[in-house]
């Protein structure tokens, strides 16, 4: 009686009339499978044909498919991996997104049975489930519609339930799942259509991380996500960021610079910046997703564990990636969520890497750039903590001064110079806040800044002139440090010497936590971020006394004095909050070129304002 079942055109009433029990169905399928071994392929082929039912299925076809799948799950032990290859291939080729929930359930059941029945099938089962992480192309665009959202939920909840079920039955399956998940991840080399899938794919990875298997697969999955962020990050080139359609003048200027370098031809530019924007959009979404995941981790009270993994992957990949632009904000946001633990840990680890001698110079230079930028920009860091880390940097530098001598040599002493620049950079941002707290002020005054900066290696001449002059201006006002001879930099953004110690990598101009120019991402970062426009310098003490009170009200932070009090030295109007859209992506703060500021001043005659928007923190001075 069950014999009719796999026949495609079996009429529905026939099936209703003949009340076939599940057991009988199972036996029928078993017979079909066994018969095919002896050469009788009729029923077997019908079964394979049922698996290929696709597209819009009528109720009969759906019922047929569902029952066949269910019956097959009872007959998995009769499947022969060689002989029934065609059937297995068609099962593993099925995509849950194409079916209704009842069929999805049957398919899920079959996959679980298959995975648990024989070691041979487990990889294929896991791959099949992982391939269901992403929808077919035709659904991708509909995912924002209610229908698409519902379908997505239906599929993904089943996929993850199945993965968990398999892990319960086959305890070692997560080990096999890991490489599959990591390898199937869409990468930047894929076509844009495939790359678009990455957002939903990463969503699935993060679901895995926070799910029951998180303990086993979490850290690897998270590292893979960070790796992919970096991959996408490096796809966006610094040059692309600089081109700005909205301000023609700058665009032309930068174009000239590029042509000077002979790096890119005019023709390739427009195309490149276009792909850059697609990738930037993706990266933005991915970062937001990661931020949201971090938030959920924080709510679940496991941010610290997750942060350990992030820190590890930061050291392996982000830190050594050449001038990563956005991926580091994952760390920044994690620290912002839990400054007490993560923030302290992050800064301490960075300082450890810098002062320890075992890392290569480039790593140490990039580390100290991260540290300086982090200490300057993290609104959530307490001033006393910043001072304690500054002290470590100063101590290292002064130790270095004792053992080294000789003339200025940007290349040989590049780690030292980068350390000095970091100290000055942080002080540009934080000097005023430190000076406001007597205890910290005395600590700062006790630091041997004099000996370091007046040492014969002469860091003041080598570090970025913009940082140095801002530092000198502030320290003079604060009576922290004075020089007998005056430095005149002629508004240089950088000098030959600073270029020398930065090397072709230009690590002298690397400030990783400059304002984030990804729109959605920035909304997460913004509340935790110290903009240069918010920094009160020591020298405008008197000027701003009147506006001080209002500013304090705007920026009151729950943590009181210890937290950076973010009064504004300058009005907020200068720093247009709404400016940060995609066009500002093209105004990334650090440029490899310096000619910019000088020319800019000449053209617009507003040197104190405009450059801040274009590259807010190449140096504090640019404001």
């Amino acid at each position: 009686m069950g014999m009719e079942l796999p026949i495609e055109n079996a009429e529905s009433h026939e099936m209703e009339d003949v009340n076939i029990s599940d057991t009988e169905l199972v036996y029928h399928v078993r017979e079909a499978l066994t018969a095919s071994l002896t050469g009788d392929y009729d029923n077997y082929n019908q079964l394979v044909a049922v698996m290929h039912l696709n597209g819009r299925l009528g109720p009969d076809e759906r019922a047929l498919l569902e029952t066949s799948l269910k019956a097959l799950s009872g007959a998995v032990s009769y499947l022969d991996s060689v002989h029934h290859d065609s059937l297995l291939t068609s099962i593993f080729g099925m995509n849950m997104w194409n079916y209704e929930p009842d069929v999805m359930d049957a398919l899920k059941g079959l996959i679980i049975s298959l995975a648990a029945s024989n070691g041979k099938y487990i990889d294929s089962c896991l791959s099949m489930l992982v391939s269901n992480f992403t929808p077919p192309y035709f659904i991708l665009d509909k995912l924002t519609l209610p229908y698409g959202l519902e379908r997505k939920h239906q599929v993904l909840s089943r996929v993850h339930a199945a993965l968990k079920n398999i892990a319960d039955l086959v305890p070692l399956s997560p080990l096999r799942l890991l490489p599959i998940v990591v390898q199937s991840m869409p990468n930047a080399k894929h076509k844009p259509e495939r790359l678009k899938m990455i957002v939903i794919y990463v969503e699935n990875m993060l679901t895995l991380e926070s799910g029951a298997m998180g303990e086993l697969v979490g850290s690897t999955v998270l590292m893979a996500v960070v790796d992919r962020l970096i991959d996408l990050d490096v796809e966006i080139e610094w040059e692309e960021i600089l081109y700005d359609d909205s301000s023609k003048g700058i665009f032309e200027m930068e174009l000239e610079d590029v042509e000077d370098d002979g790096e890119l031809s005019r023709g390739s530019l427009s195309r490149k910046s276009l792909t850059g924007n697609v990738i930037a959009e993706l990266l933005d979404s991915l970062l937001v997703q990661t931020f949201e995941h971090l938030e959920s981790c924080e709510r679940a009270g496991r941010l610290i564990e997750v942060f350990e993994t992030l820190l590890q992957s930061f050291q392996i990949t982000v830190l050594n990636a050449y001038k990563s632009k956005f991926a580091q904000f994952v760390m920044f946001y994690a620290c912002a969520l839990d400054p007490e633990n993560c923030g302290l840990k992050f800064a301490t680890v960075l300082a450890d890497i810098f002062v320890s001698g075992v890392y290569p110079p480039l790593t140490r230079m990039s580390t100290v750039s991260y540290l300086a930028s982090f200490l300057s920009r993290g609104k959530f860091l307490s001033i006393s903590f910043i001072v304690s880390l500054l002290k470590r940097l100063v101590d290292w530098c002064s130790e270095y001064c004792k053992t080294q001598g000789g003339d200025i040599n940007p290349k040989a002493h590049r780690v030292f110079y980068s350390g000095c620049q970091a100290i000055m950079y942080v002080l540009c941002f934080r000097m005023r806040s430190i000076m406001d707290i007597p205890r910290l002020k005395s600590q700062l005054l006790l630091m041997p800044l004099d000996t370091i900066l007046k040492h014969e290696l002469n860091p003041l001449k080598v570090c970025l002139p913009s940082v140095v002059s801002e530092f000198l201006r502030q320290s003079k006002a604060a009576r922290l440090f004075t020089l007998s001879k005056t430095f005149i930099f002629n508004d240089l953004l950088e000098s030959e010497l600073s270029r020398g110690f930065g090397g072709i990598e230009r690590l002298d101009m690397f400030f990783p936590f400059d304002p984030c120019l990804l729109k959605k991402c920035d909304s997460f970062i913004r509340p935790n971020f110290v903009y240069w426009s918010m920094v009160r310098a020591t020298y405008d003490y008197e000027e701003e006394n009147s506006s001080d009170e209002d500013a304090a009200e705007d920026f009151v932070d729950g943590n009181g004095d210890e937290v950076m009090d973010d009064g504004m030295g300058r009005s907020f109007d200068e720093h247009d909050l709404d400016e940060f859209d995609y066009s500002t992506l093209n105004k990334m703060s650090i440029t490899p070129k310096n000619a910019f500021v000088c020319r800019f001043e000449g053209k617009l005659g507003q040197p104190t304002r405009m450059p801040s928007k274009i590259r807010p923190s190449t140096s504090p001075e640019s404001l």
Partner: protein
Amino acid sequence: MEGLKVSDANLVVYVHPSMSNKISQAILRELSSLLFKFSETFEGVVLAYDVNILDKIAKILSGIHPYFGVSLKANLLLFSPKPNMLLEGKVVKLTQESIHVIVLGFSSAIIIDEDIREEFKYKAKHGDELYASRSNRRHKIKVGTMIRFLVKSFDEEILHISGSLIPAHTGSIRCLDKNSEDVSLTNRSTRKRREGEGETEMQENETFGGGECSLSIGHQTKKLKKHRSAKDH
């Protein structure tokens, strides 16, 4: 349970020169990479190790990377199931077609319906699925039961076992053990049941009129005074 053995191995671990200041860490990492994988050399899955460094002197290999070989004596706990061995495991899923078992918490095993002897009958009552013995109504297998089964084959790559419940000495461990004790201890009139950590559970079962498979012979109150060996738990 069979399939477990301890073996003494003389090993040489080649350590990368970059790890020369943390040798023991490097060695432990290397040995840990063996865990839960089938190793042809040891003919089994390494479950645990205890390691002694024999000599402070290591041989340095010539080459671009001067790895150095550290001689070790390691005590390895191996899991190497062979056909016809008896294994024990916990039932995690039960359907009419198969029983899924996990052995030692990491290795999965399946017993398909053809390998379940006729004595056991599949029943589904109130959503609870179980296999019940026809001859001994106390002998039941359901999710959570510890069972003893025979190995049919072992997939070394994924550590997947195919098992069988055909032989008479397979089935629920609690019941099997009780039956055998029963034979040897029938002359005792009173027995005290003691099940180690399972004691509370057993007492509860008594209150409800019999455990999963209590003693089948005799109707007098029996107390079994016996400490179970740890492996039963």
